[in-house]
């Protein structure tokens, strides 16, 4: 039996929706963490609750990247797939995310009833050069699964995977008890544990390879958290007092987390009748002096646009979180994309600019609400936080990060600014309306309106006045522009190629540049945390690179620039094209980034 040591590997468990693939992933993750390995998990979730079993839309699974270093993204290609049947495997092969020598463990349980379908998929695997290791769940386990009403197969697979990844059987069992302990009756739990052991035993007898990733002892307190949960806790820590939202994938889990937790910290969760009402109530609350936030995804962002313009004109602070998914329209609700940046920036009528913060990872999710609150209260313009499906749903173990417990925005610590590559705002900030009192403030009575006003807040249709309002609003954005410092850079200060991305592409860019440097590919990288406005020195930075190219999970082609490329071109006059502009719903891969850079350099 060979035990192959690897610095990094990636595997997948593919099952039908509702059969527990993600639960098995959670248990594995707990065990890997207990072993001191670095893990990054991406759940694959269908947009429907329970699509018919053994159908392509039913694919539900978990991708686990395991490394002996801190992983910042889901990585390149899969080395091992464990598939519950041939249909989910066939569906996943379409994504073309496997290594040429990837191994496939295929459960043959459904073969008898579907011989042709199995034959077809097995032929496909052979054609692709993939080695398939067929297996059958042992008879005892099959009986137990039947007794459990079709449940428990995931624990059998979990057993197989924990053998292959050289995990201690007893330790994983502890994780199982920890996960299900309170929910399952003793006899049911015993059956599940038997399934696990049988799976472990099966792999021991039938599978002739094992992998090991080196363990590390990690100091300090560690937490396991996903992007949306991190954002939710950040909202609480930022001193926000109202969450106002409407259910929409993939933003809803922020509302779920806050519904459970917010009241204990003095916060209110309001589920509005629609997306428009949700943002209206956030605006009403902020106007009356209680910091508020609304979160949504693409379709909701479209609906909210008129109120975003109102908040701008009336100078009411406003924070909008957009957890991006694939669009346009309903698009692909459970697939990731970075395609809302233009809708956020330019989506509403009348030409006004906003501030867009992009979150690059789970820790950014926690601190973005603090920065958003600081900026929107100082400038009284809407601030967007753009996350995406990938960032929202991925989870990993992190060293517990410091809290701020922000009450007043002036209490915001420097490290939050550093994280987003900007400085504290300085100097007086002019408002369209000089007086900015809050209801209840004695003697401060004033009316706000979406109509144009003069500096006294009076409705005004005079030409000079309207031009001034635009100038004042834009100057607010320029304040941010001037406060932005050099964005996060990877690699050399000058080079043949610079690849630029924003938000969640950070991890893939960082790793791609690391690979480029190791392979002598002359490329550097940049990640923008504040996506708009751009820092003033951007043009000077770009001048040090022969080619500047974007990497985006959004569509672009030779005639249609991708969103970030469009913005960068217009603001720097540099001939910027996308290196990768793919709206496939799948995250960027470092290896593909390097490969494309190599092609460009040929």
């Amino acid at each position, binding site marked *: 039996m060979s035990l192959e040591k690897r610095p990094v590997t990636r595997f997948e468990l593919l099952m039908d929706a509702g059969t527990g693939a993600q639960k098995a992933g959670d248990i594995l993750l707990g065990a890997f963490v207990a072993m001191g390995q670095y893990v990054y998990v991406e759940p694959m979730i269908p947009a429907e609750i329970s699509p018919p079993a053994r159908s392509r839309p039913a694919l539900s699974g978990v991708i686990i990247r395991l490394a002996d270093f801190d992983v910042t993204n889901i990585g390149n290609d899969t080395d091992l797939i464990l598939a519950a049947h041939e249909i989910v495997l066939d569906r996943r092969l379409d994504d073309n995310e496997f290594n040429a020598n990837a191994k496939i463990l295929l459960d043959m349980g459904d073969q008898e009833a579907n011989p042709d379908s199995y034959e077809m998929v097995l032929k496909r695997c052979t054609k692709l050069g993939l080695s398939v290791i067929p297996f059958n769940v042992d008879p005892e386990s099959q009986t137990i699964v039947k007794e459990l009403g079709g449940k428990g197969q995931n624990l059998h697979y979990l057993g197989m995977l924990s053998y292959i990844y050289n995990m201690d059987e007893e330790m994983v069992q502890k994780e199982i008890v920890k996960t299900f302990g309170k929910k399952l009756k003793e006899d049911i739990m015993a059956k599940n544990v038997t399934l696990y052991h049988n799976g472990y035993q099966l792999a021991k007898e039938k599978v002739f390879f094992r992998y090991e990733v080196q363990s590390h002892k990690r100091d300090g307190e560690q937490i396991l958290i996903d992007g949306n949960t991190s954002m939710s806790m950040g909202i609480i*820590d930022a001193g926000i007092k*109202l969450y106002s939202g409407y259910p929409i994938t993939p933003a809803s889990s922020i509302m779920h987390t806050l519904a459970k937790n917010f009241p204990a*910290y003095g916060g209110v969760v309001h589920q509005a*009748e629609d997306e*428009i009402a949700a943002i209206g*109530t956030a605006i*009403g609350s902020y106007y*009356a002096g209680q910091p508020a936030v609304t979160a949504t995804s693409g379709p909701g962002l479209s609906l909210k646009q008129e109120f975003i313009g109102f908040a701008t004109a009336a100078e009411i602070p406003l924070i909008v979180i957009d957890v991006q998914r694939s669009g346009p329209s309903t698009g692909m609700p459970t697939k990731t994309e970075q395609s809302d940046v233009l809708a956020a920036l330019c989506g509403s009528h009348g030409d006004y600019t906003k501030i867009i913060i992009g979150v690059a990872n789970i820790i950014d999710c926690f601190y973005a609400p603090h920065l958003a609150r600081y900026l929107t209260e100082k400038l009284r313009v809407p601030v967007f936080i753009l996350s995406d499906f990938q960032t929202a749903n991925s989870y990993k173990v992190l060293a517990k990060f410091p809290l701020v*417990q922000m009450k007043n925005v002036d209490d915001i610590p420097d490290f939050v600014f550093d994280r987003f590559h900007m400085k504290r705002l300085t100097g007086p900030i002019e408002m369209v309306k000089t007086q900015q009192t809050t209801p*209840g403030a004695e003697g401060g009575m004033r009316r706000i309106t979406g109509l144009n006003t003069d500096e006294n807040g009076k409705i005004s249709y005079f030409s000079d006045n309207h031009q001034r309002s635009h100038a004042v609003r834009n100057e607010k954005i320029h304040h941010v522009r001037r406060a932005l410092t050099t964005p996060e850079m990877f690699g050399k200060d000058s080079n043949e190629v610079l690849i630029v991305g924003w938000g969640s592409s950070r991890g893939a860019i960082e790793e791609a540049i690391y690979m480029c440097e190791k392979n002598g590919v002359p490329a550097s990288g940049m990640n923008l945390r504040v996506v708009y406005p751009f820092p003033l020195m951007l043009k000077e930075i770009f001048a040090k690179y022969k080619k500047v190219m974007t990497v985006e999970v959004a569509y672009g082609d030779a005639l249609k620039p991708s969103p970030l490329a469009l913005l960068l071109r217009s603001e720097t006059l540099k001939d910027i094209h996308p290196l990768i502009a793919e709206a496939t719903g799948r995250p960027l891969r470092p290896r593909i980034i390097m490969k494309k850079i190599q092609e460009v350099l040929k």
Partner: protein
Amino acid sequence: MTTDTLSKPAPVPITIKELNTENPRWCAGCGDFGIIMGLKRFIVDRQLIPSQTVNVSGIGCSGRAPNYFNTYGVHSIHGRPIPIALGVALARPDLNLFVHAGDGDAMSIGGNHLIHGINKNFKCVFLMYDNEMYALTKNQTSPTTRQNHPTNTQPQGSYLNPLNPITVALGLGASFVASTADWIPDHLTNTMKTAFDHPGFAFVHISQRCPHFDPNNFDHKNSNWFSFLKHPNGIEPDRRLADKTEVLEHDPSNLAQAFQYGAAERRYFGLFFQNKEKPRYDVILHNLVDKAVKKDPSKILDSFLV
């Protein structure tokens, strides 16, 4: 946060003059003058503190109303004053909250918010300015335009039977439904009083004249076409007109009778229905916070420790 506090009287007596801002930009004879004057009279009678009073409106002629009160105010976007008002109510339950909406705001573009404002029953006085047309956009059919009345968008005459705001509100389960008109100032102010004291969403329908586009709609010189509803728990009939028209005794707890008056051809001004016991969403949310076992904010990540 407290759920509800009675507003304290102003330290210096408030007069109408202090509540005025600029000259309203409404047409001569517009019913909106009467409505805001009725509300100002109430504010003076009750001595509400202007800095603790918020008027929220939508868009249209009625949308301008908050600009003409020297209180706090939000002139928001078309159809959406209710969500804004709810935000204010959740953030500052101690403030006096008045929502101003036209028939387009309330019954058309913002219909969904009216449904849920009524259902949520949060504390505010909701004033529906009903001139039965779109006026600021220059004479278009609204959901309450009477059938066959010609407008710029339906020049052959409005096609449909109008929506009936009273039965709509009653049907939605409103905890307070009253009706009044811009030209009966005494009744208007009495209505504001009863509505303000209602613990919940007080739906007040106001028939409003539009002399510019529809001068013959409401015969404000005669009173034989409407009746007042009267009750010890209701709204006092108009002092000036009480002896000139029918005054009916109506118990505002009688929902079936309220529907009958609401659906009748004849107009009724007064309190159709009131239920002071309907649960309030704002109170429920505030209670959730008040009664939650508080957690240490310095440990918010501790439940994620591995």
